[in-house]
């Protein structure tokens, strides 16, 4: 019988440069919930068990370690808790499809501004936001979990590129900070 050892894409790597920390994090199971036409009520009922509801566009909500993240029209990702059987929706396991990178620190916005074509000003992009967008040439999901804390979900196969690009942005920022004008 084979012994199958689980491995994440970046094996939990972490790096801090200047005011920014980049780390691979484990958010637990990720389950896609895609509501069928007419299925909203049933889904709402099913999610109530967790104290959650389908999120508003571009947002996420949390309850006791369970998080529901908007992913599109009639679609959300449930993370942090085991998949649950839901009437009225297509439920698909996505746990292995994504690598999640936490970008934290006072320079996090500046680092992401090197890659993300999105207005990340706190007023416009407050805590609780979750958007699908790009980081350079990769499609990503970005969650703002704190004033200086973001989580970036990227396709697992591209994790190394995502890491490299954020790390490069951090290095350039640090080099700028290290020179007087």
């Amino acid at each position: 019988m084979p012994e199958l050892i689980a491995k994440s894409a970046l094996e939990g790597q972490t790096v801090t440069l200047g005011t920014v920390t980049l780390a691979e994090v484990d958010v637990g199971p990720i389950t896609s919930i895609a509501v069928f036409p007419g299925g909203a009520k049933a889904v709402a009922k099913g999610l109530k068990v967790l104290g959650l509801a389908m999120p508003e566009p571009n947002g996420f909500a949390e309850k006791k370690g369970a998080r529901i993240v908007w992913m599109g029209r009639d679609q959300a990702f449930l993370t942090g808790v085991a998949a649950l059987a839901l009437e009225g929706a297509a439920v698909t396991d996505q746990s292995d499809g994504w690598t999640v990178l936490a970008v934290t620190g006072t320079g996090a916005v500046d680092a992401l501004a090197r890659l993300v074509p999105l207005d990340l000003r706190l007023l416009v992009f407050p805590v609780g936001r979750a958007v699908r967008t790009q980081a350079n040439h990769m499609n990503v999901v970005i969650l703002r979990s704190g004033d200086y804390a973001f989580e970036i979900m990227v396709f697992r196969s591209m994790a190394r590129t995502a890491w490299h690009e954020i790390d490069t942005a951090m290095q350039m920022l640090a080099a700028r900070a290290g020179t007087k004008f």
Partner: protein
Amino acid sequence: MRIDGKGLVDRTKPVRFRFDGKDYAGYKGDTLASALLANDVRLVGRSFKYHRPRGVLTAGSEEPNALVEVIGASNQTPNVRATVQEVFEGLVTQSQNRLGSLKYDLLAVNDYLAPFLSAGFYYKTFMWPRAFWEGLYEPIIRRAAGLGSLSGRHDEGTYEKAFAFCDVLVIGSGPAGLMAALTAGRAGADVILCEESHALGGRLLSDPQTIGGMAAGDWVAQVVAELNALPNVRIMTRTTVTGAYDNGTYGALERVGLHKPARPNLPRECFWRIVAPHAVLASGALERPVAFENNDRPGIMMASAVRTYLNRYGVSPGKRVTLFANTDAARATARDLMAAGITVAAIIDPRPDASAVGDCPVHVGAEVVGSRGRLGLSGIQVRKGSEIIEIETDCLAMSGGWNPTIHLTCHMNGRPRWDEELAAFVPMEGAVPGLVAVGAANGSMSTHGALATGQAAALKMVEALGRKVSVPLPEAEDAPYRLKALWAVEGTGRAWLDFANDVTTKDVKLAAQEGYASVEHMKRYTTQGMAPDQGKNSNVAALAVLADATGRGIPETGTTTFRPPYVPVSIAALGAGGRAEGFAPQRFLTSDQASRDRHAPMIEAGLWYRPSYFPKPGETTWREACDREVNMVRQAVGVADVSTLGKIDIQGKDAGRFLDFVYTNTFSTLPVGRVRYGLMLREDGLVLDDGTSARLGEDHYLMTTTTAAAGLVMRHLDFVHQAFCADWQVRFISVTESWAQFAVAGPKARALVNSFLETPVDLPFMGVAPVRIGGVDGRLFRISFSGEEGYELAVPTRYGEALFRDLLARAETMGGGPYGMEALNVLRIEKGFITHAEIHGRVTAYDIGMEKMVSAKKDCIGKAAATRPGMWGPEREQLVGLKAQAPISAGAHLFVPGQEVHRETDQGYVTSVCWSPTVGAWLGLGFLKDGRARIGEKIRLVDHLRGLDVICEVTGPVFHDPEGEKLRA
């Protein structure tokens, strides 16, 4: 020469730099131009065409003459404006576009040939004999042309790109820009203030006037201090806004590290995309030269530049200066020079009604008609009435008035408006939505006008943002701007318009004479305005000369279009991040490391990296490894990572119906637990993709796409779903990344699979079942891309590497092992399976012999268009197999043996070939006219490029196990 006590350079920080091999001293805060002028270096470059000696003309990024090469440790940068480049300790520069030394440039001979090098001369000659163009004339022209040099080495510098967002973008930090930024900033709006120079203040740094009762410099310092303290204001110095794009997007270039020695990871430049619903264009105005004979000598400069060098840098560009200007404002240059103790030899003012009063000789109603001094100005000739006056001078400060810097307002095709009073183009309001030009950029030439219009524009924007603010307007000069347009002084000699491209008034007149009379024709014929300054110094004057020559007015003549970028931007900055592997994301399989451990060369498959083959000790070519791997699969068992195939999870009561709509064949009838091959068309009837889809449950399918088309298919499915059946009970999502999937193929495949399944399964061919492996839920498919009994085993991606390593270890105990892309390709050719080499976008289901897979019982995407008469029939090239005993090649064309080889006899082409160790022959797949009717014929394969000419046998496309007995075993 440096003037004691003047200027804003930091005299406590001397800096050593080098120009043309000689060391000089400057100060922190100097540009290369100011530092060279401080050292009395006037000759800094050679002109483009005539190689005329040239000196600094301006004090800004519009400089046409003083372009130099900056020599770094590892590379050099050509065409750097000496007027922008700041000096720093160790800066090394050299002049460019010369043959020999700057002083003795051998190509200066061109200046003597000028009569034969008039506008467009090259269109009229060099035509005979024909071969001499590429062989002789063109190489000479190419060598002589161009300005600075690239080294030819890779640019290893660091570059950056970034995004920024704000409520109000202020472009320029002169009085108008500062006032706008202050107003918007105090109102609480998010402001980005971009300033091209390293210091804020714009023209106020060069102009010792009074604002709000204090020295302008103090006012600037006070405003800047406040802006710096506002958290909602972001000041970006050394940043030039280069372009205006749709919906409030602006491009901007920041010079991050160009003013200091290179450091690791410090970007040289950063290209910003700034998004702002409101923008204030406070870019000021550019002073314009006057065309007169020999007006291009080193020492002839813009009056405002002379003033800037004096007041901002503490440098006088001459010891005995003359002023030639048609505005009152320009007289300030003379006043400031005299106040600094510099001799002003004369003021020449062409306006007959100008004031004749001054502290130096003033020639009213006079014009400069000539100059002398080979490598630097030594004197000028002034015409006053019928009299010619000779004046000794080493610096002529000239001004023909001002052109508002309107470029950004034209970037979205806006045409500027001619203002007679200003004798200049001003912006058309609303030409760039959200962008408002203020101050001199909008023709308000006084300081008061700048402050007032800057504030007014900002107030409107603030109001639109729902904010309120009250900011007092400081008092400032409000002198009227009065000029008599003077573009070119009458004369017979060469008078330069475009210094950078060596275009003279004669050239423009010649263009008109030859019928190139539209402004675009004149520009293109003479190259006026096409040089590095893009006509910033010359376009309007050239237009006026053309208007004069054609007898039209300037407004009727029109203007050429300003296009981005406002200042040239390095390719490296715009392409930051693209270097090396940064051009596109890299996708790695979970088996990547295991494959590399086995020394498999990894090759690109789209964005993925896949193993090409797995060499064994003793194997010296890829073919040896490939043949072994093919035999291994045919005789024992092989393992390959096929996770790159697209996988789409499709659920819902209408899932089957949906698949029936997107596939040509039917899936709603597929039993649960079974897999079916599907063919997908584009709506135009040509093949989009193929793959297998499995029915995992009553309302649950898993579709597989090819690696190449995974994204394409997803987009297609989204379109079909949302456009035509959004109300159906179907939902789908990509699970490509969720599963690691491995093909296990060969006669021993079943034994291998069963060796680790908790419960051995007995799957029929094209069956699917859930399995458990080492406590993990997986899926087992019995499908084959090799023609052998084959399985594909899928587990959650996190277990992929472990499973792959385990599979290889087990396979190796059974005489098997991993196989790579090369073997995979051979196996599929032997079995006649197609890939995107065959379904290359021009083939129909008919062409590949699958027309029967297009169900007659239902509609599907592409079905109707595939019935067009040109899409089927014997004229079309059809998929066949080719078999030969000699090497053949993909890309070869097919001909009837014995017939001539040319386009009209062409019968088809080859798409895939391999040496088949199984069949013992060279095999190919290809497309042959009416091919299915020609099986058994001989065909001639010709590949001119690889020197192949081989007779092949035309066969069916399936070479190995055509009955499929092995698959079903």
